[in-house]
């Protein structure tokens, strides 16, 4: 894998890296300032408010970081046609459709609720997949929308965010106060926060993997073609493996919403990855295929 034919978009990954970094910096920095000046309770409220804002504006943030443009049915009639039918088949409101001009073959869904959701595909995925495979990927993303995965993952990560915040700044704050019992109490909160942060990190990742599998499953049943989805998965993860790791690590922030993770190093522990292994996903899809082939009892 020394040479790659893949033309990676360095600017895009850099933008995403910057957005992610800034987002984290805003959380911690703004929260820290507020805690410093007005006490921990208001700080916590503000952190939760920021998490809420991140959820509420999730579609705008994600789409802007991918530089995606919305396409009308006139501009992309085939893509809209497929999504129209899948939405009618799944009985769900149609999300807005976006296309991102990047060779990275991927797709993601975002938005705070099924009524305010967007689905985004990259030009890379449109070029690589057959109509049937693309349909499988789109139904996977629609399943994320129907399952409200953006809201759920935001709520799930908010706890870890809060714990991480207290871990970083709690002790500093406690040390600033010299009451009779203030410092030990703060120390306890700090230790607890570290534990909560570690646990919630693992749980959030586990939840993310679980929801990927459930989206795969819904998609396979919706289209009735688990093999097309499996083939798309193999195609995309194969392509993903050819991309240099350096650029992929910067795209990691968007991973939770991607169809296939852009971070596919073999050594990556299964415990901390946002997506289940391709083998695990293919295994599930083949069991769905077996289910579909069986006659009704």
């Amino acid at each position: 894998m020394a040479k790659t034919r893949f033309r990676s978009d360095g600017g895009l990954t850099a933008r995403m890296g910057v957005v992610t970094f800034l987002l984290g910096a805003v959380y911690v920095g703004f929260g820290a300032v507020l805690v410093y000046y007005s006490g921990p309770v208001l700080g916590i409220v503000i952190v939760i408010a920021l998490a809420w804002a991140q959820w509420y504006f999730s579609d705008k943030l994600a789409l802007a970081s991918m530089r995606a443009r919305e396409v009308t049915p006139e501009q992309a009639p085939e893509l809209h046609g497929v999504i129209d039918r899948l939405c009618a088949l799944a009985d769900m409101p149609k999300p807005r459709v976006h296309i991102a001009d990047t060779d990275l073959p991927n797709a993601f869904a975002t938005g705070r609720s099924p009524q305010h959701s967007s689905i985004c595909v990259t030009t890379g995925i449109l070029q690589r997949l057959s109509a049937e495979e693309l349909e499988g990927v789109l139904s996977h993303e629609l399943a994320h929308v129907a399952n409200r995965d953006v809201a759920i993952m935001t709520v799930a990560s908010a706890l870890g965010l809060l714990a991480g915040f207290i871990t970083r700044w709690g002790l500093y704050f406690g040390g600033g106060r010299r009451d009779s019992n203030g410092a030990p109490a703060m120390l306890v909160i700090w230790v607890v926060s570290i534990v909560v942060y570690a646990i919630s990190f693992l749980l959030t990742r586990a939840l993310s993997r679980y929801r990927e599998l459930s989206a795969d499953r819904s998609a396979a049943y919706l289209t009735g073609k688990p093999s097309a989805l499996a083939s798309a998965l193999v195609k995309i993860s194969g392509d993903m493996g050819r991309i240099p790791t350096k650029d992929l690590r910067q795209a990691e922030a968007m991973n939770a919403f991607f169809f296939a993770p852009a971070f596919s190093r073999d050594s990556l522990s299964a415990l901390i990855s946002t997506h289940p292994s391709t083998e695990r996903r293919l295994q599930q899809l083949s069991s769905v295929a077996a289910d579909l082939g069986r006659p009704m009892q």
Partner: protein
Amino acid sequence: MGLWDSLLGRHKPVEANLDVLFAVPQAALTLQAGGGFTPLGTGAVCYRANEGAAFSVTQTDVQALLDADGGPAVERSTDSYGFTWLLDRQDPADLSGLVTELHAVNTSLQDNGFGSSLLCSLIGFTAPSGAPLGLVYLYKRGTFYPFAPAGNQQRDNVLELQVRGLIEGDLPVEPELGRWLGLWGAPGLG
């Protein structure tokens, strides 16, 4: 989808109400009297073909069932989106016979566990001007909407809204216009 299902990431199939299909002959009379629309005697069911033997067997059974009446053979075709259409032709005067057959196709697929793969059923009409009009039954919503194609990816909204006004009393019409799926090139549309 409820909150609990969302939390568990479950996909709950929608309960269909196929019996409203039998209200179509009455609506056809209204369309004839109120707008001069005549039924073509064509009806088509659109579904997503699943992979695997169970689906092929069901599909063959359904086709055999429809062909058993001795009329014109059922035509099966696949559209550009990979959806399958079963086109059934009956005497235009016998709309209730047509509706019964469409009902049978829907029920057979549903009873074999493929209800989630059913997209819609379409009944063909002609406007007095000669323009085609499809009365579409959305399986997942249990509602109807008119579809009037006017060339490549265009539709005649005026005609559609006129038809909506006519059939509102007879059939449940899909209230969300965003769900009035475009079905250009559907078989049975004249």
